[in-house]
């Protein structure tokens, strides 16, 4: 028998499981935000480790922009079915029909509007805590956020007035109408996520691995051609081997050129990359110096 060593992944896993159990024990009506992306797939495995053989004490919730990659939606439905957990899907289309979202250009990214549908869903089910797979290494405003992040009755985050958070004791007290966003994998990095996917042999959407795809080049960014993004006159469509580092709204998620077909190859690429995960792939984060902070203040997760 080999001696067990407590690695950094074990430490992170144990912290995340503690946070999830804390939410289940302290909150009346929690939910887990699940998109089918790699971070939320890791969240599902952590939830399994925290609660199995029992059912999860919360439903899975997805706010669908209907601009998602089909491979991701397929993976989302398959995972929820295999686990036998309740999946609630609310679409931006419902909010558009209700008139709470007015879209000027149908081909533009829909991420900014996600907050509206998320807040409506929270109100519909009366969730007092929503767990999300956001990580602090993703973005500079997220690097500032508490693990238990308090939101007022309008769903807003006040970054200048965050609650103290000592040791592993979390404050879950909220008034009616207020809620908290909980980020159990705050301290994980992109590298940790990939190492964990490798260690746990998790099934992730195929577009995370290298594949041939039709793309167009705009500036330094490679943009995937889809029914939502068509080449403008003068733009040339190329077929390139690419993989996605993040999966989000199809109109603003860019792949990176890569030939990495296995988790090990992706880990090697991640170790040598010189561009941040969202910097390389999210066009909506580059609109201003504080775009994520502004979206979070509006209620984004």
């Amino acid at each position: 028998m080999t001696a067990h060593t407590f690695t950094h992944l074990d430490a992170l896993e144990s912290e995340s499981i503690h946070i999830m159990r804390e939410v289940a024990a302290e909150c009346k009506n929690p939910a887990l935000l699940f998109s089918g992306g790699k971070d939320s797939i890791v969240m599902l495995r952590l939830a399994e480790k925290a609660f199995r053989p029992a059912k999860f004490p919360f439903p899975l919730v997805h706010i669908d922009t209907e601009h998602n990659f089909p491979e991701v939606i397929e993976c989302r439905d398959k995972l929820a079915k295999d686990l036998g957990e309740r999946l609630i899907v609310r679409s931006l289309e419902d909010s558009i029909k209700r008139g709470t979202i007015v879209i000027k250009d149908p081909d533009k990214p829909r991420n900014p509007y996600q907050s509206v549908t998320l807040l409506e869903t929270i109100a519909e089910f009366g969730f007092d805590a929503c767990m999300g797979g956001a990580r602090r290494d993703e973005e500079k405003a997220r690097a500032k956020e508490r693990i238990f992040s308090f939101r007022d009755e309008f769903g807003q985050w006040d970054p200048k007035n965050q609650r103290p958070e000592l040791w592993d004791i979390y404050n879950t007290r909220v008034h009616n109408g207020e809620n908290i966003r909980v980020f159990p994998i705050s301290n994980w990095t992109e590298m940790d996520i990939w190492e964990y996917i490798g260690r746990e042999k998790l099934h992730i959407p195929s577009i995370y691995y290298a594949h041939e795809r039709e793309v167009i080049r705009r500036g330094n960014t490679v943009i995937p051609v889809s029914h939502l993004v068509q080449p403008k006159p003068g733009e040339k469509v190329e077929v390139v081997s690419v993989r996605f580092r993040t999966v989000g709204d199809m109109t603003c998620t860019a792949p990176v050129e890569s030939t990495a077909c296995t988790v090990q190859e992706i880990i090697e690429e991640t170790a040598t990359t010189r561009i941040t995960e969202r910097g390389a792939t999210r066009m909506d984060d580059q609109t201003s110096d504080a775009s994520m902070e502004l979206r979070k203040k509006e209620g984004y997760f």
Partner: protein
Amino acid sequence: MSNTTQLLRFITAGSVDDGKSTLIGRLLHDSKSIFEDQFSAISKTSEKRGMAAVDLSLLTDGLQAEREQGITIDVAYRYFATPKRKFIIGDTPGHEQYTRNMVTAASTANLVVILIDARKGVLVQTRRHTYLASLVWWACRTSCWRSTRWTWWITRNSVSRRSSASTGDSPRNSTCTT
């Protein structure tokens, strides 16, 4: 990275403008943990402010208000790894009114680096941060020791009910790492 890397959480503390954010910026720069897009963003901001060199402290000041005022308001977390260890760094604010945010970061740290500006010496906030760092560490150690003692007590009693053999070490002898 090998499968046995350990995790070390540390923070920088000390008075306002004594170089906490700059030290972290420099550490990340020298360990090549600053990504190109992050570096170009802080270069642009430094240029806008008319600085001759890139201000590395801007790296951890992620909030709009922090960048406008040139101060740290809340703790920012940054991550880097060496083949031996993975590090979680917390950059804490030095201002008196944001001391609670420093305590938040100190409570989860294994190590605190206290910065002192040699020209100004030990200031009020230097002393306060030093005291608070030892306070949260002792509080953590005490609660950990208490829970160890409690577990030991339960174990001993449940075992002694089954057999009269005495068991276990005294918690006073057991080491407790935080």
